[in-house]
């Protein structure tokens, strides 16, 4: 089974801008790329998951680097970014939009591009899609349960959440770090995620996530020409530092393992649903 989908290359990378690294997840690839895009007229608006109250993410059209930085960091709960696709073009007047999303959101965007039935004059303005690795997501109260009940942290106090080394991590503004084994978080996952077989956002221009790279770095798939171009410019301009991806067990190996785990597990789930006569996303 093909774990990653089509891609041209994969690297480990991180942003060089300390402002970004301070606020962002891992290597800060999404924030750095969007800021670079906005500052160099490659993008004029980006759809991101902003921090709302109590760590509740809200989709936002960001048009300045400051807004991108404000929104930096992964939120392990559903944030309907694609719902803003049209607003970005309409009242925001953007022509070159960057979209970041989970694999399913990238799939959704791709379907919109191919079949833009209800998206008049919108999809031609999507300039860049960045996908983030995703095993599954949590509904807001699922995430809340994990943070508050399993980790014992108050949501108001949370400054960052993370998944790594088999654990769900919570960092509070009081400097505390709390964690829980990922296994224990499974009951709080969004069930709809179990029909998805895409771990690495196989249809994005660029896909990124922490898995496969050392702490503070991100693994980055460059899948399309567009994606390659912007990353190359960033590297050349010193906005990103890179190193070859570790091809061993703790690099590409673990990434491959997780990608295949998601596929195998969820293909089984899809088959199971079919046996029960339940609908699954039809792929013909």
């Amino acid at each position, binding site marked *: 089974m093909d774990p990653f989908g089509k891609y041209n290359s994969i690297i480990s990378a991180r942003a060089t801008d300390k402002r970004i690294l301070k606020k962002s997840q891992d290597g800060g690839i999404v924030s750095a790329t969007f800021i670079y895009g906005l500052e160099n007229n490659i993008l004029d608006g980006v759809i991101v998951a902003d921090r709302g109250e109590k760590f509740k993410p809200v989709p936002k059209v960001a048009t300045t680097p400051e807004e991108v930085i404000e929104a930096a960091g992964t939120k392990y709960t559903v944030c309907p970014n694609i719902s*803003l696709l049209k607003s970005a073009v309409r009242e925001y007047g953007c022509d070159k939009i960057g979209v970041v999303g989970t694999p399913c*959101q990238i799939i959704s965007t791709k*379907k919109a591009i191919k079949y833009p039935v209800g998206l008049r004059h919108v999809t031609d303005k999507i300039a860049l899609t960045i996908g983030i690795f995703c095993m599954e997501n949590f509904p807001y109260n699922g995430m809340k349960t994990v943070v508050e009940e399993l980790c014992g942290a108050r949501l108001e106090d949370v400054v960052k959440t993370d998944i790594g080394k088999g654990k769900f991590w919570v960092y509070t503004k009081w400097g505390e770090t709390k964690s829980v084994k990922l296994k224990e978080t499974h009951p709080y996952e969004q069930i709809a995620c179990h029909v998805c077989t895409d771990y690495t956002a196989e249809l994005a221009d660029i896909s990124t996530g922490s898995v496969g790279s050392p702490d503070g770095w991100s693994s980055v798939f460059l899948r399309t020409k567009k994606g390659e171009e912007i990353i190359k410019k960033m590297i050349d301009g010193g906005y990103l530092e890179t190193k070859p991806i570790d091809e061993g067990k703790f690099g590409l190996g673990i990434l491959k393992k997780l990608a295949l785990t998601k596929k195998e597990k969820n293909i089984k789930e899809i088959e199971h649903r079919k046996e029960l006569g339940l609908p699954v996303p039809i792929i013909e």
Partner: protein
Amino acid sequence: MMVTVAHVQLSSCCGCLISLSDTYEKLIDILGSIDLVYCQTLADAREIPNADVILVEGAVCLDDHHTMEIVKEVREKGKILVALGACSAVGGITRFCKGGQMPKPVQSSFSALTEVVKCDLAIPGCPPSPELIVNVITAVLNGNMEYLRPFAKYAESKRGACGCDLIINVINKSLCMGCGVCAASCPTRAIKMIEGRPLVSSELCIKCGVCSFQCPRIELPKGVCQLDGE
């Protein structure tokens, strides 16, 4: 030989044709790539001729004899009959029609074209975007049946449409992952994302079918799952 295309308007607002004309500078090229043999709004032909493709926008007024004649005619004369846009494909705003209005109080029953005659393709949306209409025309010209399959299925299923489809077919079926594309595509802004799920306002839904068509969890056509443009 160029593909002959006819556009026929039944009970509709003409918005689907305007949508096609909103291809702006490309319109001339599009009209140049086909042979538009009938389009009452844009050209002088007064009789619907035989055509490779007949695009029909609007619902069928069952209480109007003339309309019923046209419906028979388009099926007979069109090799490929396309129900273009919500009214023709799935009912759309005409689902709310109930008659009693002057000066034709007896005209009360409007049905989607797909419910009255066999259509080959049905395109939801109020209106479908210019880009989508061009994609469909191009796919028809190139015989790209794979691209057209979702529309063929819509035509076949003769399904009505409603924002409730999101509830029944996606949320209730444990398929909604909260991407929000339904909300973005809704032409009346009837959909808000609350707690990561669509909340459809029944006050604003016009039953155009766009939200559920756009949903990748109801149908994910194969062509979508290929990375192109590299």
